[in-house]
């Protein structure tokens, strides 16, 4: 007999996110409800939550980069990123992001996943450059367009990372696939697996690249 009750926690997360309650609150409530429905005592739920939080502190380390980024912004980093792009003829938002997509995919495929990222590169460099290029194409951007262009910068970083990293042999997800299949007696090398990440990586580049070209056409048309 399958116990379906713990799934209620998932429903709580979906509803809470949809109604835009504070996500930290939603997650905490969902965790406690799921734990209680999974026949854990409140103290046990609290301990599991605390243990999980403590063990996963490394996820939050990335923010140590902010003092550097903030300091450089104080001295005009974003303005300089704009100036640089304004001086490059033929630089468009879409083309810039296509180059960034390719670079991000290749670096990730080489295992250099932390070389770029939202705090490291998107906020201080990529987003201001792309906004500056879009302004060149389009003139002054309205708020909606600025949001769209910035969101595309973040999206391009994600696509480049996700569909590049699995080509690298020693990435966690490849090792996880290898380990999971090995527990069923299926022995594969990381190389056999990572080769099959290449077709998807190419599709990701083509699909997202096409959207970036369309972004350029959109920006040009609204002028």
């Amino acid at each position, binding site marked *: 007999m399958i116990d379906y009750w713990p799934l209620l926690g998932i429903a709580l997360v979906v509803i809470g996110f949809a109604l835009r309650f504070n*996500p930290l609150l939603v997650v905490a409530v969902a965790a406690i409800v799921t734990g209680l429905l999974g026949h854990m005592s409140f103290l046990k739920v609290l301990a599991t939550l605390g243990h999980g939080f403590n063990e996963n502190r490394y996820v939050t380390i990335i923010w140590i980069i902010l003092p550097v980024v903030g*300091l450089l912004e104080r*001295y005009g980093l974003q303005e300089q990123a704009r100036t640089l792009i304004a001086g490059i003829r033929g630089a468009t938002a879409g083309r810039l992001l296509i180059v960034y997509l390719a670079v991000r995919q290749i670096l990730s495929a080489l*295992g250099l996943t932390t070389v770029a990222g939202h*705090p490291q590169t998107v906020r201080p460099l990529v987003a201001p450059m792309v906004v500056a290029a879009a302004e060149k194409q389009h003139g002054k951007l309205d708020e909606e367009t600025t949001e769209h262009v*910035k*969101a595309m910068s*973040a999206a391009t970083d994600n696509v480049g990372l996700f569909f590049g990293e699995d080509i690298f042999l020693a990435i966690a*997800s490849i090792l996880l696939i290898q380990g999971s*299949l090995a527990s069923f007696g299926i022995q594969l090398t990381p190389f056999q697996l990572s080769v099959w990440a290449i077709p998807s990586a190419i599709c990701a580049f083509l699909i997202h690249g096409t959207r970036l070209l369309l972004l350029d056409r959109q920006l040009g048309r609204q002028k």
Partner: protein
Amino acid sequence: MINLHWLYVLAGAVFAGFALGSARDETNAKRWGNTLFWALLAVSFWFGDFFGDVGNGMLVLALVAIAGLNLIGRGSKQSTTPEQRQQSADRYGNKLFVPALIIPFTAFVGTMLFNYTPLKGLNLIDPKAVTLVLLGCGVIIALIVSYAWLRPPALAAVDEGSRLMNGVGWAAVLPQMLASLGVIFAAAGVGTTIGAIVGAIIPQGSVLLAVVLYALGMVVFTMIMGNAFAAFPVMAAAIGVPILIQADGGKAAVVGAVGMLSGFCGTLMTPMAANFNIVPAALLELKNQYGVIKVQVATAIPLLIANIIILYVAGFRL
């Protein structure tokens, strides 16, 4: 050997700095809420290992209470005006990129040194922590270079770092919270339940349908859990191995690799993958906290279809 604990000491110091910077910002009406929030995180980084699980659980509840009761705000303090920034940019020019690029450069050179030279054998850095240690080194070098070159006021890095950190706000700990939720989900048996449901609705006889269900299962479960890592072992056990590989004779490498990548399409579409989807929206100061997800859907869905085709053709027809 340098391990994660060294980094936790550094991270604790930086978060203590964010607490200090928040306290110094009088333009933020809720500054003491921010101060307490970042101070609790500093405490967690420094002393989390001494609190015990229940103690850490209470720390989590305190963080959630501060965020949930809306006790965190952001100030409007501007250290320099846009005009001053433009002047400064004109003065320093492209050299401003140098400190910013020190961090990725350190990561790049460090990764090369520790993977492909004799340094690898010295065990200077715990292999599990290499990337984060290099990030920490990069940050320290970049800070030293910036201070030596630009000569900002002593607390400038603290104030500017807090300005950005308070812009992100509570979203900064959401990824870590979601990771803890994953631990609870696993302990309560959510994975096995979903695996059993999917396994029960699998159609007989149609390879294509089974492939579609496997890929969609990866997407949906990834969207629920926030990452494909939690979804993969469950979906592999429910459909991937028994149906696709063993019964239908699919290539194991394709089923494994492309199955995981189908899950990544789900990662693009869920707020549960907060560090990729919610955090950047905050970091880029978007009005819509789901703005990044909104633009990713139109890439994720065609890419999912492409992955299903790759799975079917390369796994079963080649």
